Protein backbone atom coordinates (compact mmCIF):
# COMPACT_ATOMS: atom_id res chain seq x y z
CA UNK A 1 0.00 0.00 0.00
CA UNK A 2 1.48 3.33 -0.94
CA UNK A 3 0.24 6.82 -0.31
CA UNK A 4 2.11 9.97 -1.17
CA UNK A 5 -0.30 12.28 0.53
CA UNK A 6 2.15 13.05 3.33
CA UNK A 7 4.77 14.19 0.82
CA UNK A 8 2.15 16.13 -1.13
CA UNK A 9 1.01 17.93 2.00
CA UNK A 10 4.61 18.75 2.91
CA UNK A 11 5.44 20.06 -0.55
CA UNK A 12 2.27 22.10 -0.64
CA UNK A 13 3.25 23.70 2.66
CA UNK A 14 0.25 22.38 4.59
CA UNK A 15 0.17 23.11 8.32
CA UNK A 16 2.00 20.65 10.51
CA UNK A 17 -1.24 19.72 12.22
CA UNK A 18 -2.80 18.70 8.89
CA UNK A 19 0.20 16.52 8.07
CA UNK A 20 0.05 14.92 11.49
CA UNK A 21 -3.68 14.31 11.17
CA UNK A 22 -3.25 12.56 7.83
CA UNK A 23 -0.41 10.41 9.18
CA UNK A 24 -2.61 9.37 12.08
CA UNK A 25 -5.33 8.17 9.75
CA UNK A 26 -3.10 6.63 7.02
CA UNK A 27 -0.90 3.67 7.99
CA UNK A 28 1.14 4.03 4.76
CA UNK A 29 2.04 7.61 5.53
CA UNK A 30 2.53 7.09 9.25
CA UNK A 31 6.02 5.61 8.86
CA UNK A 32 7.09 8.20 6.31
CA UNK A 33 5.84 11.00 8.49
CA UNK A 34 7.61 9.55 11.52
CA UNK A 35 10.91 9.27 9.60
CA UNK A 36 10.49 12.79 8.39
CA UNK A 37 9.98 14.10 11.87
CA UNK A 38 12.82 12.10 13.37
CA UNK A 39 15.44 13.23 10.85
CA UNK A 40 14.29 16.82 11.21
CA UNK A 41 14.73 16.36 14.95
CA UNK A 42 18.25 14.97 14.45
CA UNK A 43 19.43 18.29 13.12
CA UNK A 44 17.49 20.52 15.47
CA UNK A 45 20.14 20.47 18.20
CA UNK A 46 23.06 21.12 15.85
CA UNK A 47 24.68 24.51 15.65
CA UNK A 48 26.69 25.99 12.81
CA UNK A 49 30.42 25.44 13.18
CA UNK A 50 32.17 28.60 14.31
CA UNK A 51 34.64 30.13 11.88
CA UNK A 52 37.90 31.27 13.33
CA UNK A 53 39.15 34.88 13.43
CA UNK A 54 42.14 33.75 11.41
CA UNK A 55 39.87 32.61 8.62
CA UNK A 56 38.05 35.92 8.70
CA UNK A 57 41.33 37.79 8.29
CA UNK A 58 42.37 35.49 5.49
CA UNK A 59 39.10 36.06 3.67
CA UNK A 60 39.44 39.82 4.07
CA UNK A 61 42.83 39.64 2.36
CA UNK A 62 41.43 38.01 -0.77
CA UNK A 63 41.42 41.25 -2.85
CA UNK A 64 45.14 41.57 -2.20
CA UNK A 65 45.77 38.09 -3.55
CA UNK A 66 43.99 38.09 -6.85
CA UNK A 67 42.07 40.20 -9.33
CA UNK A 68 38.74 39.73 -11.01
CA UNK A 69 38.55 38.72 -14.65
CA UNK A 70 37.66 42.26 -15.67
CA UNK A 71 40.53 43.59 -13.57
CA UNK A 72 42.84 41.10 -15.22
CA UNK A 73 42.04 42.55 -18.65
CA UNK A 74 43.22 45.96 -17.57
CA UNK A 75 46.33 44.57 -15.90
CA UNK A 76 47.26 42.53 -18.96
CA UNK A 77 46.98 45.65 -21.11
CA UNK A 78 49.16 47.58 -18.70
CA UNK A 79 51.63 44.72 -18.43
CA UNK A 80 52.16 44.88 -22.20
CA UNK A 81 53.16 48.49 -21.72
CA UNK A 82 55.36 47.58 -18.77
CA UNK A 83 53.38 49.72 -16.40
CA UNK A 84 52.47 47.33 -13.58
CA UNK A 85 54.32 46.98 -10.33
CA UNK A 86 55.34 43.79 -8.55
CA UNK A 87 52.23 43.47 -6.40
CA UNK A 88 49.94 43.84 -9.41
CA UNK A 89 52.01 41.33 -11.32
CA UNK A 90 51.75 38.87 -8.41
CA UNK A 91 47.96 39.29 -8.28
CA UNK A 92 47.70 38.85 -12.02
CA UNK A 93 49.93 35.77 -11.99
CA UNK A 94 47.85 34.26 -9.18
CA UNK A 95 44.67 34.89 -11.12
CA UNK A 96 46.19 33.44 -14.27
CA UNK A 97 47.07 30.30 -12.36
CA UNK A 98 43.39 29.86 -11.46
CA UNK A 99 41.52 31.18 -14.49
CA UNK A 100 42.12 29.37 -17.76
CA UNK A 101 40.43 32.00 -19.92
CA UNK A 102 42.50 34.87 -18.55
CA UNK A 103 45.68 32.78 -18.76
CA UNK A 104 44.97 32.06 -22.41
CA UNK A 105 44.28 35.72 -23.14
CA UNK A 106 47.48 36.83 -21.41
CA UNK A 107 49.59 34.19 -23.15
CA UNK A 108 48.20 35.18 -26.53
CA UNK A 109 48.79 38.89 -26.05
CA UNK A 110 52.24 38.41 -24.58
CA UNK A 111 53.13 36.07 -27.40
CA UNK A 112 52.73 38.87 -29.94
CA UNK A 113 56.11 40.26 -29.05
CA UNK A 114 57.75 36.88 -29.52
CA UNK A 115 56.68 36.73 -33.15
CA UNK A 116 59.49 37.09 -35.71
CA UNK A 117 59.22 39.30 -38.77
CA UNK A 118 58.04 37.37 -41.83
CA UNK A 119 60.63 36.81 -44.58
CA UNK A 120 59.47 38.42 -47.86
CA UNK A 121 59.22 36.39 -51.04
CA UNK A 122 62.08 36.80 -53.51
CA UNK A 123 59.91 38.72 -55.95
CA UNK A 124 58.58 41.06 -53.28
CA UNK A 125 61.32 43.70 -53.52
CA UNK A 126 61.18 43.94 -57.29
CA UNK A 127 57.42 44.18 -57.33
CA UNK A 128 57.41 46.88 -54.70
CA UNK A 129 60.02 48.87 -56.64
CA UNK A 130 57.99 48.54 -59.82
CA UNK A 131 54.89 49.76 -58.08
CA UNK A 132 56.72 52.76 -56.66
CA UNK A 133 58.60 53.85 -59.84
CA UNK A 134 55.67 55.34 -61.85
CA UNK A 135 54.80 57.58 -58.95
CA UNK A 136 58.33 58.92 -58.89
CA UNK A 137 58.36 59.66 -62.65
CA UNK A 138 54.92 61.22 -62.43
CA UNK A 139 56.13 63.53 -59.78
CA UNK A 140 59.11 64.47 -61.96
CA UNK A 141 57.11 65.12 -65.16
CA UNK A 142 57.14 68.59 -66.54
CA UNK A 143 55.93 70.48 -69.57
CA UNK A 144 53.20 68.85 -71.67
CA UNK A 145 53.81 65.58 -69.83
CA UNK A 146 52.37 67.18 -66.77
CA UNK A 147 48.98 67.44 -68.55
CA UNK A 148 48.95 64.28 -70.66
CA UNK A 149 49.65 60.94 -69.13
CA UNK A 150 51.42 58.06 -70.88
CA UNK A 151 48.20 56.19 -71.59
CA UNK A 152 46.58 59.28 -73.06
CA UNK A 153 49.60 59.89 -75.28
CA UNK A 154 49.50 56.34 -76.60
CA UNK A 155 45.78 56.65 -77.33
CA UNK A 156 46.32 59.91 -79.19
CA UNK A 157 49.12 58.38 -81.26
CA UNK A 158 46.89 55.48 -82.29
CA UNK A 159 44.11 57.90 -83.20
CA UNK A 160 46.47 59.96 -85.36
CA UNK A 161 47.69 56.87 -87.16
CA UNK A 162 44.12 55.81 -87.81
CA UNK A 163 43.27 59.20 -89.28
CA UNK A 164 46.31 59.06 -91.56
CA UNK A 165 45.27 55.60 -92.75
CA UNK A 166 41.75 56.82 -93.46
CA UNK A 167 43.19 59.67 -95.52
CA UNK A 168 45.03 57.19 -97.73
CA UNK A 169 48.48 57.15 -96.27
CA UNK A 170 49.95 53.97 -95.00
CA UNK A 171 52.30 54.86 -92.20
CA UNK A 172 54.18 51.63 -92.68
CA UNK A 173 54.87 52.35 -96.33
CA UNK A 174 55.84 55.89 -95.54
CA UNK A 175 58.26 54.69 -92.95
CA UNK A 176 59.65 52.06 -95.30
CA UNK A 177 60.12 54.62 -98.02
CA UNK A 178 61.76 56.99 -95.67
CA UNK A 179 64.20 54.29 -94.66
CA UNK A 180 64.91 53.23 -98.29
CA UNK A 181 68.27 54.54 -99.24
CA UNK A 182 68.37 54.61 -103.09
CA UNK A 183 71.55 55.23 -104.95
CA UNK A 184 71.89 58.69 -106.42
CA UNK A 185 71.57 57.56 -110.06
CA UNK A 186 68.51 55.43 -109.31
CA UNK A 187 66.98 58.31 -107.43
CA UNK A 188 67.51 60.58 -110.44
CA UNK A 189 65.96 58.00 -112.77
CA UNK A 190 62.95 57.70 -110.59
CA UNK A 191 62.67 61.44 -110.32
CA UNK A 192 62.95 61.80 -114.08
CA UNK A 193 60.45 59.13 -114.96
CA UNK A 194 57.08 60.63 -115.64
CA UNK A 195 53.88 58.87 -115.06
CA UNK A 196 52.26 58.59 -118.48
CA UNK A 197 48.67 57.62 -119.31
CA UNK A 198 49.83 54.35 -120.84
CA UNK A 199 51.51 53.45 -117.56
CA UNK A 200 48.35 54.10 -115.63
CA UNK A 201 46.20 52.09 -118.08
CA UNK A 202 48.68 49.26 -117.96
CA UNK A 203 48.55 49.29 -114.19
CA UNK A 204 44.76 49.17 -114.18
CA UNK A 205 44.79 46.38 -116.74
CA UNK A 206 47.23 44.37 -114.67
CA UNK A 207 45.10 44.82 -111.57
CA UNK A 208 42.00 43.71 -113.45
CA UNK A 209 43.73 40.63 -114.73
CA UNK A 210 44.96 39.72 -111.28
CA UNK A 211 41.51 40.17 -109.83
CA UNK A 212 39.99 38.02 -112.58
CA UNK A 213 42.51 35.31 -111.89
CA UNK A 214 41.68 35.34 -108.22
CA UNK A 215 37.95 35.24 -108.87
CA UNK A 216 38.32 32.44 -111.38
CA UNK A 217 40.42 30.36 -109.07
CA UNK A 218 37.95 30.87 -106.26
CA UNK A 219 34.98 30.00 -108.44
CA UNK A 220 36.65 26.90 -109.72
CA UNK A 221 37.73 25.93 -106.27
CA UNK A 222 34.34 26.44 -104.66
CA UNK A 223 32.57 24.75 -107.58
CA UNK A 224 34.80 21.75 -107.49
CA UNK A 225 34.39 21.42 -103.78
CA UNK A 226 30.61 21.73 -104.00
CA UNK A 227 30.44 19.14 -106.75
CA UNK A 228 32.60 16.74 -104.77
CA UNK A 229 30.43 17.14 -101.72
CA UNK A 230 27.29 16.52 -103.73
CA UNK A 231 28.70 13.34 -105.23
CA UNK A 232 29.76 12.11 -101.80
CA UNK A 233 26.36 12.84 -100.36
CA UNK A 234 24.71 10.85 -103.09
CA UNK A 235 27.11 7.95 -102.68
CA UNK A 236 26.70 7.86 -98.92
CA UNK A 237 22.95 8.11 -98.96
CA UNK A 238 21.26 5.04 -97.60
CA UNK A 239 18.03 3.48 -98.59
CA UNK A 240 15.03 4.55 -96.48
CA UNK A 241 14.32 2.35 -93.48
CA UNK A 242 11.46 -0.11 -93.66
CA UNK A 243 8.21 1.41 -92.66
CA UNK A 244 7.25 -1.03 -89.86
CA UNK A 245 8.83 -3.40 -87.39
CA UNK A 246 9.09 -7.03 -88.47
CA UNK A 247 6.17 -8.90 -87.02
CA UNK A 248 7.92 -12.25 -86.59
CA UNK A 249 11.40 -13.69 -86.41
CA UNK A 250 11.43 -14.91 -90.00
CA UNK A 251 11.48 -11.40 -91.40
CA UNK A 252 14.36 -10.17 -89.20
CA UNK A 253 17.21 -11.33 -91.46
CA UNK A 254 15.78 -10.25 -94.82
CA UNK A 255 17.32 -7.18 -96.44
CA UNK A 256 15.16 -4.29 -97.50
CA UNK A 257 13.63 -4.62 -100.87
CA UNK A 258 15.48 -1.75 -102.52
CA UNK A 259 18.96 -2.64 -101.16
CA UNK A 260 19.83 -4.61 -104.31
CA UNK A 261 19.04 -1.63 -106.47
CA UNK A 262 21.24 0.65 -104.38
CA UNK A 263 24.16 -1.75 -104.52
CA UNK A 264 23.85 -1.99 -108.27
CA UNK A 265 23.74 1.76 -108.58
CA UNK A 266 26.86 2.09 -106.45
CA UNK A 267 28.69 -0.44 -108.60
Amino acid sequence: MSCSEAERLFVAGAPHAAQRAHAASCPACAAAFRDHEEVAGLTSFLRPPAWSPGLRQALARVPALTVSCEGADALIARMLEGEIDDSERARLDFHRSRCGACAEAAETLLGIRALTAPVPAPWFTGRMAASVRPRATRAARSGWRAFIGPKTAIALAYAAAFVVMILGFNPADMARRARTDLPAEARSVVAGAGTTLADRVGAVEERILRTALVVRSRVFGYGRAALTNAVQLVLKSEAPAPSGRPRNGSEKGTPPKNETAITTWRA
Partner: protein
Amino acid sequence: MSGANNDKDLVERCRQGQDEAWRELVDRFGQKVYSVAYHFTLKREDAEELSQEIFLKIFENLHRYEGTFPLVAWVVSISRNLCIDRYRRLKREKSFRFVSDEAVAPLLTSSDDPAALALRKERTRMLFSALSEIPEDLAEILVLRDLDGLAYEEIGQALELPEGTVKSRLFRARAEVARRIRERHDSRAQGTPLAVVAAAFA
Protein backbone atom coordinates in the same frame (compact mmCIF):
# COMPACT_ATOMS: atom_id res chain seq x y z
CA MET B 1 17.03 50.64 0.10
CA SER B 2 15.65 47.19 -0.78
CA GLY B 3 17.61 44.00 -0.27
CA ALA B 4 18.34 43.52 -3.97
CA ASN B 5 19.56 47.08 -4.36
CA ASN B 6 21.58 46.75 -1.19
CA ASP B 7 23.22 43.60 -2.55
CA LYS B 8 23.91 45.22 -5.90
CA ASP B 9 25.35 48.27 -4.24
CA LEU B 10 27.59 46.14 -2.05
CA VAL B 11 28.88 44.21 -5.02
CA GLU B 12 29.44 47.41 -6.97
CA ARG B 13 31.48 48.88 -4.14
CA CYS B 14 33.52 45.67 -3.94
CA ARG B 15 34.19 45.90 -7.68
CA GLN B 16 35.43 49.43 -7.21
CA GLY B 17 38.01 48.11 -4.81
CA GLN B 18 36.58 49.43 -1.56
CA ASP B 19 38.09 47.35 1.24
CA GLU B 20 35.35 48.09 3.75
CA ALA B 21 32.75 46.81 1.27
CA TRP B 22 34.65 43.56 0.87
CA ARG B 23 34.94 43.18 4.65
CA GLU B 24 31.20 43.75 4.92
CA LEU B 25 30.62 41.00 2.37
CA VAL B 26 32.94 38.67 4.26
CA ASP B 27 31.15 39.39 7.55
CA ARG B 28 27.75 38.83 6.00
CA PHE B 29 28.49 35.53 4.31
CA GLY B 30 31.68 34.20 5.90
CA GLN B 31 29.92 32.16 8.57
CA LYS B 32 27.40 30.71 6.14
CA VAL B 33 30.05 29.79 3.57
CA TYR B 34 32.22 28.16 6.23
CA SER B 35 29.21 26.28 7.57
CA VAL B 36 28.32 24.92 4.13
CA ALA B 37 31.94 23.99 3.53
CA TYR B 38 32.23 22.26 6.89
CA HIS B 39 29.06 20.23 6.41
CA PHE B 40 30.38 18.98 3.08
CA THR B 41 33.89 18.18 4.31
CA LEU B 42 33.58 17.58 8.08
CA LYS B 43 37.18 18.75 8.49
CA ARG B 44 38.18 22.14 9.81
CA GLU B 45 41.26 22.49 7.61
CA ASP B 46 39.41 21.41 4.50
CA ALA B 47 36.51 23.71 5.30
CA GLU B 48 38.80 26.69 5.79
CA GLU B 49 40.67 25.97 2.59
CA LEU B 50 37.39 25.53 0.76
CA SER B 51 36.05 28.79 2.23
CA GLN B 52 39.05 30.68 0.92
CA GLU B 53 38.60 29.09 -2.46
CA ILE B 54 34.93 30.09 -2.45
CA PHE B 55 35.69 33.70 -1.57
CA LEU B 56 38.41 33.87 -4.20
CA LYS B 57 35.87 32.67 -6.70
CA ILE B 58 33.33 35.19 -5.46
CA PHE B 59 35.81 38.06 -5.79
CA GLU B 60 36.94 37.02 -9.25
CA ASN B 61 33.37 36.75 -10.47
CA LEU B 62 31.79 39.80 -8.89
CA HIS B 63 31.14 41.26 -12.34
CA ARG B 64 28.87 38.31 -13.10
CA TYR B 65 26.40 39.13 -10.33
CA GLU B 66 23.49 40.88 -12.01
CA GLY B 67 21.31 41.45 -8.97
CA THR B 68 18.36 39.49 -10.33
CA PHE B 69 18.21 37.38 -7.15
CA PRO B 70 19.52 37.79 -3.61
CA LEU B 71 23.26 37.83 -3.12
CA VAL B 72 23.05 35.03 -0.58
CA ALA B 73 21.66 32.69 -3.23
CA TRP B 74 24.49 33.61 -5.59
CA VAL B 75 27.07 33.04 -2.86
CA VAL B 76 25.50 29.71 -1.91
CA SER B 77 25.42 28.70 -5.56
CA ILE B 78 29.17 29.24 -5.90
CA SER B 79 29.76 27.54 -2.56
CA ARG B 80 27.66 24.58 -3.48
CA ASN B 81 29.43 24.07 -6.82
CA LEU B 82 32.85 24.02 -5.23
CA CYS B 83 31.67 21.96 -2.25
CA ILE B 84 30.06 19.37 -4.47
CA ASP B 85 33.33 18.91 -6.32
CA ARG B 86 35.15 18.39 -3.04
CA TYR B 87 32.35 16.17 -1.73
CA ARG B 88 32.55 13.88 -4.74
CA ARG B 89 36.29 13.58 -4.32
CA LEU B 90 35.90 12.72 -0.66
CA LYS B 91 33.25 10.15 -1.48
CA ARG B 92 35.54 8.60 -4.08
CA GLU B 93 38.29 8.47 -1.50
CA LYS B 94 35.83 6.91 1.00
CA SER B 95 36.61 9.67 3.47
CA PHE B 96 33.05 9.55 4.73
CA ARG B 97 33.21 5.90 5.74
CA PHE B 98 33.93 6.81 9.31
CA VAL B 99 32.72 10.05 10.91
CA SER B 100 34.83 10.80 13.95
CA ASP B 101 33.81 12.46 17.21
CA GLU B 102 36.13 15.34 16.40
CA ALA B 103 34.31 15.90 13.14
CA VAL B 104 30.93 16.36 14.80
CA ALA B 105 32.14 18.09 17.96
CA PRO B 106 32.08 21.62 16.46
CA LEU B 107 28.42 21.10 15.61
CA LEU B 108 27.29 20.28 19.13
CA THR B 109 26.61 22.64 21.96
CA SER B 110 28.31 21.79 25.19
CA SER B 111 26.16 20.06 27.78
CA ASP B 112 26.44 19.33 31.46
CA ASP B 113 25.08 15.88 30.87
CA PRO B 114 27.85 13.70 29.40
CA ALA B 115 25.41 10.93 28.53
CA ALA B 116 23.18 13.28 26.58
CA LEU B 117 26.20 14.71 24.81
CA ALA B 118 27.42 11.26 23.88
CA LEU B 119 23.98 10.36 22.55
CA ARG B 120 23.91 13.51 20.42
CA LYS B 121 27.37 12.76 19.12
CA GLU B 122 26.30 9.28 18.15
CA ARG B 123 23.16 10.49 16.42
CA THR B 124 25.08 13.17 14.55
CA ARG B 125 27.68 10.66 13.40
CA MET B 126 24.93 8.37 12.17
CA LEU B 127 23.29 11.28 10.42
CA PHE B 128 26.42 12.19 8.47
CA SER B 129 27.20 8.58 7.69
CA ALA B 130 23.72 8.15 6.28
CA LEU B 131 24.06 11.40 4.35
CA SER B 132 27.17 10.09 2.64
CA GLU B 133 25.24 7.06 1.43
CA ILE B 134 22.24 8.74 -0.16
CA PRO B 135 22.30 10.36 -3.62
CA GLU B 136 24.09 13.70 -3.54
CA ASP B 137 21.20 15.64 -5.08
CA LEU B 138 19.15 14.63 -2.03
CA ALA B 139 21.98 15.05 0.45
CA GLU B 140 22.82 18.59 -0.60
CA ILE B 141 19.23 19.73 -0.16
CA LEU B 142 19.13 18.30 3.36
CA VAL B 143 22.45 19.92 4.23
CA LEU B 144 21.45 23.32 2.90
CA ARG B 145 18.04 23.26 4.53
CA ASP B 146 18.39 21.39 7.82
CA LEU B 147 22.05 22.09 8.62
CA ASP B 148 22.67 25.49 7.04
CA GLY B 149 19.18 26.84 7.61
CA LEU B 150 18.63 28.24 4.13
CA ALA B 151 15.10 29.07 3.03
CA TYR B 152 13.47 26.98 0.34
CA GLU B 153 13.50 29.97 -1.97
CA GLU B 154 17.21 30.54 -1.48
CA ILE B 155 17.97 26.87 -2.11
CA GLY B 156 15.85 26.92 -5.24
CA GLN B 157 17.65 30.01 -6.54
CA ALA B 158 21.05 28.61 -5.70
CA LEU B 159 20.40 25.25 -7.31
CA GLU B 160 18.12 26.62 -10.04
CA LEU B 161 15.27 24.37 -8.96
CA PRO B 162 11.57 25.08 -8.38
CA GLU B 163 10.62 25.39 -4.75
CA GLY B 164 8.32 22.38 -4.99
CA THR B 165 11.21 20.25 -6.24
CA VAL B 166 13.32 21.41 -3.33
CA LYS B 167 10.63 20.38 -0.85
CA SER B 168 10.01 17.09 -2.57
CA ARG B 169 13.71 16.24 -2.56
CA LEU B 170 13.98 17.25 1.07
CA PHE B 171 11.10 14.92 2.00
CA ARG B 172 12.73 12.04 0.13
CA ALA B 173 16.14 12.85 1.58
CA ARG B 174 14.78 12.65 5.10
CA ALA B 175 13.06 9.35 4.31
CA GLU B 176 16.27 7.94 2.84
CA VAL B 177 18.37 9.07 5.79
CA ALA B 178 15.85 7.56 8.21
CA ARG B 179 15.93 4.28 6.35
CA ARG B 180 19.76 4.14 6.36
CA ILE B 181 19.90 4.95 10.06
CA ARG B 182 17.34 2.23 10.81
CA GLU B 183 19.25 -0.33 8.75
CA ARG B 184 22.51 0.59 10.48
CA HIS B 185 20.82 0.39 13.87
CA ASP B 186 19.33 -3.01 13.08
CA SER B 187 22.61 -4.44 11.80
CA ARG B 188 24.42 -3.16 14.86
CA ALA B 189 21.83 -4.75 17.16
CA GLN B 190 22.22 -8.06 15.35
CA GLY B 191 26.00 -7.77 15.50
CA THR B 192 26.24 -7.54 19.29
CA PRO B 193 27.68 -10.60 21.08
CA LEU B 194 24.38 -11.20 22.79
CA ALA B 195 22.55 -11.27 19.51
CA VAL B 196 25.17 -13.60 18.02
CA VAL B 197 24.87 -15.99 20.95
CA ALA B 198 21.09 -15.85 20.80
CA ALA B 199 21.14 -16.56 17.09
CA ALA B 200 23.51 -19.50 17.65
CA PHE B 201 21.22 -21.13 20.19
CA ALA B 202 18.05 -20.44 18.26
